[in-house]
């Protein structure tokens, strides 16, 4: 058993963790900004934007992955811009895995955060306005603290989704052992090549993480922080 554990390549585990953490942090920033815009401003195409953000939830991952491959590939404008900015291509690097993960966690965050921000009493925000507070101060000192529990729960959820993406990741980050192979991809790889033991261990590890996260989100929604 000990031998089995040491024989496992832990790279996919650490890569998944790194990808999920970075993706969650970035998703939180992007998701909150989008959710705030959707919750607070009336503009043309607001609901269309909301649908567009939700699309990744319903689209088959391979289809989504293909779109991204076309949009972010080395020949595309975005791909070239990224390469010019950071010196390395985006697709088929671990950074592409971050993008893939974000396409799963951003929609989740936007949905929950929009509902949470919309549920904050407008009068409370207006009271802050009459007291001279700037819009950013209102957001960080009033709105966000009042919506924080739901947003926190959604963040944990988003993290779990980011940890386990397979379809989009394999399309745009590929399956390069030691470079872009995340847990979900590694499990697929292990099963394909008949390595049941590492596959089983990784499956257990992911399942335990998922259960832990679900428990945590439930606790977040139940406990009342005074």
């Amino acid at each position, binding site marked *: 058993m000990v031998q089995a554990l040491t024989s496992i390549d832990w790279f996919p585990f650490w890569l998944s963790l790194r990808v999920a953490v970075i993706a969650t942090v970035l998703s939180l920033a992007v998701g909150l900004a989008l959710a705030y815009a959707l919750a607070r401003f009336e503009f043309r195409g607001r609901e269309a934007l909301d649908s567009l953000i939700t699309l990744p939830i319903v689209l088959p991952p391979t289809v989504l992955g293909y779109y991204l491959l076309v949009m972010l590939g080395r020949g595309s404008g975005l791909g070239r811009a990224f390469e010019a900015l950071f010196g390395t291509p985006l697709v088929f690097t671990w950074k592409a895995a971050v993008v893939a993960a974000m396409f799963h966690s951003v929609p989740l965050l936007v949905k929950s955060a929009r509902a949470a921000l919309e549920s904050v*009493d407008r009068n409370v925000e*207006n*009271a802050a*306005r*009459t007291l*001279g507070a*700037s819009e950013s101060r209102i957001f960080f000192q009033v709105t966000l*603290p009042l919506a924080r529990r739901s947003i926190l729960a959604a963040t944990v959820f988003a993290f779990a989704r980011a940890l386990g993406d397979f379809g989009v990741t394999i399309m745009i980050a590929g399956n390069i052992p030691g470079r872009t192979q995340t847990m979900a991809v590694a499990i697929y790889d292990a099963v394909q090549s008949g390595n049941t033991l590492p596959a089983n261990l990784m499956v257990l590890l992911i399942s335990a993480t998922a259960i832990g996260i679900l428990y945590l989100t439930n606790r977040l929604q139940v406990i009342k922080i005074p």
Partner: protein
Amino acid sequence: MADLEFTLRKQYPAAGTSGGFTLNVSLECLSGITVLFGASGSGKTMTLDALAGFLRPDVGRIVLNDGILFDGGSGACLPPQRRAVGYVFQNYALFPNMTVEQNLAFGIQHLPPLERTRKIREMLDRFGLAERAKSRPAGLSGGEKQRASIARALIPEPRLLLLDEPVRGLDHPLREDFYEILHSVRERHRIPILLVTHDATEGFLLGDQMAVFGAGEIVQVGTPEQVFRHPRNPEVARLLGISNIFEGVVEQLDPMANHSLLRTPRFSVNLAYLPGRLRGDTVKICIPREQVSLVPAGHGSSAGPHDNRIPVHILEEVFTPATVRMKLQVSAVDPHAPKTPNTSTDTQDTPLIEVEVSRRSHRKMKLDQQKDWLAELPLDSIHVFDA
């Protein structure tokens, strides 16, 4: 020169089942309390929101102490942050994530810490909240929440204070407390205070000035005394709770004797001379039910020639803690009434006269011994509507 002067117009187009709404109001206020009175949905809160800067009127102008807050013509519109307007919301809208102290501190962040602490102390003491300084709003009683909300609005020293139905949901003793607080605020901060209410008595009690709202417009402005004594039209009278509203035809006009006679479907009323009216004109009058008195029929005849004594019998009695309200039906058709063919059984739609007397005088009336009564409508208590 008024301290606050505004003209606002905002149109909401009809959408779905709602028929659209137009706010079109104009008012001048001095320092002191102006009560915005009217039914729900008549535009009172909308007016407050426009003054605070939460909603932008289509056209209009808001001038506070010679400073322009909004001017539709030039497009100038100060954001709420720069209007120096205090707002006490109907649900108080305290910051739930902050203690009372932090709620008060929120609006005076720009002051030096010592000054800030001093002001917060002072406010907490003044509003009886010293012991709740560290409590969050969820732990406060209704009255405490309200006081905290007023203190929070006043601490940055606003130039205008807006209160939206501040006593809604408060028990009676707490209302009395609030009235006292409001009076002290009025004495201490010499600023215009606008208070929204749909309670006529409260409006009378609190207002230096009263603006009556109806369907997005201000129907009447005056001191509460003026508004109650001379409601502009029957709708205002009804809003104020004045129930004896009658319509009649002018039958006699005598400027020399300062007398006129109005015939309603069931009885005639003597009035002072009605300048500018012609015989045959339709006129509406009202008389508050507290002003009507009941005297036993056949008891003396001390009434002057122009007093109104109408034979009635009591149809219904409603007991309130301090008074008895009675609905009176006019007994006999006025002998002078023109005999029209359809006067036979149309008692259904003839208005009843309402009277309200104290429980004490009700006890003295010995209702069981007396069936026939005279309702007395004193000449000087009858209000004649302009249009």
